[in-house]
């Protein structure tokens, strides 16, 4: 049923996107140090880590919002620079930012098509509105009208709009920074379902999430960031949540494991879906 052009079935070994040794500092804070990341076509990579681990910074480097201080990015086999967001969009990297980056004074349609309006000199309002409804229905969005300003929408509705926006155009990689954080049950299921479909179409998906259930539901690989460094890479199917949590917190002794130990032996003792952050790894080093 999907009418979206299929990305040609790629050899699973060639990475669509790879980052090597990417480093980013803000003043005295090393937000990212020597990060490596590979995303293949038709693969969902989850990035997890504590608050302040550098996930959003990594996403912004991919989106062209931040320039890395060191390191290389290779896209489709050739080294690339992503000097600004339009370069990223041009490459085929669509991003849903954690703060959504929507214009509150503009309507839903205006936001969806911002920067890639149909017929720039004589906007095709009708065409854009129809396309907007199609996209939103695909995500089971509960939005009464697309002519309403973003300011009038709830947090989850806004998030749906931001996700819908990333599907426009013809992206090769979709980067989602906590896409389901504000979504309801049905909408979360719809987004996870969407991620599955994007993978089937051969797109690369990078998903940042704190929700282990979501991650394990759709991800192929899990990459753990800790204090701005790679801290482990797991196969999402075989790994246990405890291992991931341990890599996230950098310790095998933390609230989650202690609790598991306490209830050890009793019924099913899978750790909670949400990762509990520890204080020591939350670094708030904004210097500037």
């Amino acid at each position, binding site marked *: 049923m999907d009418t979206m052009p299929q990305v040609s079935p790629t050899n699973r070994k060639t990475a669509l996107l790879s980052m090597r040794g990417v480093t980013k500092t803000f003043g005295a804070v090393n937000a990212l140090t020597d990060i490596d990341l590979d995303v293949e076509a038709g693969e969902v990579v989850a990035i997890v880590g504590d608050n302040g681990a550098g996930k959003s910074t990594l996403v912004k480097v991919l989106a062209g919002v931040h320039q890395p201080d060191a390191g290389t990015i290779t896209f489709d086999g050739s080294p690339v620079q992503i000097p600004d967001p339009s370069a990223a969009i041009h490459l085929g990297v669509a991003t849903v930012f954690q703060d959504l980056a929507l214009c509150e004074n503009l309507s839903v349609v*205006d936001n969806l098509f911002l920067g890639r309006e149909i017929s720039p000199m004589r906007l095709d309002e009708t065409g854009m509105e129809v396309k907007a409804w199609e996209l939103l*229905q695909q995500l089971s969005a509960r939005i009464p009208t697309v002519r309403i300003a973003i300011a009038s929408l709830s947090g989850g509705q806004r998030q749906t709009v931001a996700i819908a926006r990333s599907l426009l155009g013809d992206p090769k990689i979709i980067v989602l920074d906590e896409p389901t954080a504000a979504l309801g049950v049905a909408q979360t299921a719809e987004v996870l379902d969407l991620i599955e479909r994007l993978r089937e179409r051969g797109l690369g998906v990078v998903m940042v999430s704190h929700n282990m259930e979501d991650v394990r539901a759709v991800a192929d690989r899990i990459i753990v960031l800790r204090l701005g460094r790679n801290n482990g890479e797991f196969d999402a199917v075989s790994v246990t949540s405890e291992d991931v949590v341990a890599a996230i917190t950098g310790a095998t002794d933390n609230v989650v494991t202690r609790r598991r130990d306490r209830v050890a032996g009793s019924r099913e003792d899978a750790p909670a879906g949400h990762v509990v952050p520890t204080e020591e790894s939350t670094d708030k080093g904004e210097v500037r």
Partner: protein
Amino acid sequence: MTRPTSNAAPPRRALDQTDERLRQSEGVAGALASFVRSMRAGDVGALPVIIGLVVICAIFQSLNSVFLSSGNLVNLTLDSCAVGIISLGIVCVLLVGEIDLSVGSVSGFSAAVVAVLFVRHGWNWILACVVACAIAVAIGLLFGVLLTRFGMPSFVSSLAGLLAFLGLQLAILGDQGSVNLPFDSTLVGFAQLDFVPAWLSYLLAGLAALAVFLAGYETRLRRRKANLSARSINALIVRSLALLVGLEAFFWYLNRSRGVGWMVVFFVALVLLLNYGITRTKWGRSLLAVGGNVEAARRSGINVRNIYLSAFMLCSLLACVGGILAAGRLASANLSSGTGDVNLNAIAAAVIGGTSLFGGRGSAFSALLGTLVIASIASGLTLLNLDSSYRFVITGLVLAVAVAIDSLARKSRASHGRA
């Protein structure tokens, strides 16, 4: 990427009317009802300024019956044009959330450039205007670069520009301090003496109404075809007819005196053009986006720098055009061209007309309506033989009210969830 979904629109409902929480509003009554609703929510639009205009006219008419006479209205429309055009430029910079305080000086400076080149050096007037416009665009570019490259707030850079260009204006006018434009020149003719023939004015009014109807009808057809809700045909007819009757009556009234000046037609054409640019092009959408949330605009791939530059360049260009027309209307460029209240009137007009000082919200029509308010006050007070001190006070009060309405509407929008 369409795929059938469980909640697809039931066949009889338009695509955008599927949500059951949506209030249905059909026909003329529905249009009226939704208008009242959005008004309550702080989406006041042009209503306060139109009410204000009616009140101002009523007051001055009751004090002096000459105010609404054909002759005075012709003068009033001609007086509005120069400041109105400058104000259009202000709308552009306000939309991106910036300000240009130098428009008065730039207009006076441009008038001086044209007058000196045209009269003292005997240049062709068109060439003189082109040179002045080019200089103005360069000035706008300078403000834009100062903002985007050096992060200098436009408030400061244009304040510096205000002084600097006033100085340049005085310098090029020299010791005589004034250059008179010949009465038989095209420029003076255009700004003072040339009026649209009566038959043509009625034809223009008819065409305008027809254009509104056809544009609305075309949109309606397209939306119907795409299974979207559309404005009812009756509401469309009522709108076009109201416009037709209003315009024809207004032109008829003006034609009892000298009529509709070509400069007025030019001003209105600029308003319509800018309105098209803001509402129907990618550029206009980008202006609003930058004014609403710069970072979001940047991340959408909009070239924010170019948008700022275009807004400032357009603003200075329009200031230049306004300045040249003001000189034509006075038949001279002198030391006081573009000084005094020109600057603040242009800015006040845009704000009074409903363009927000906070960026991302406004319309080209606000320049038209706001300028009419300011010109009415000036004209009414002149008729009452009150000197300019009162005019300043009253214009200041009206501006204060307009900004208060803007802020209140903003609050109301926030509480009703509309940015």
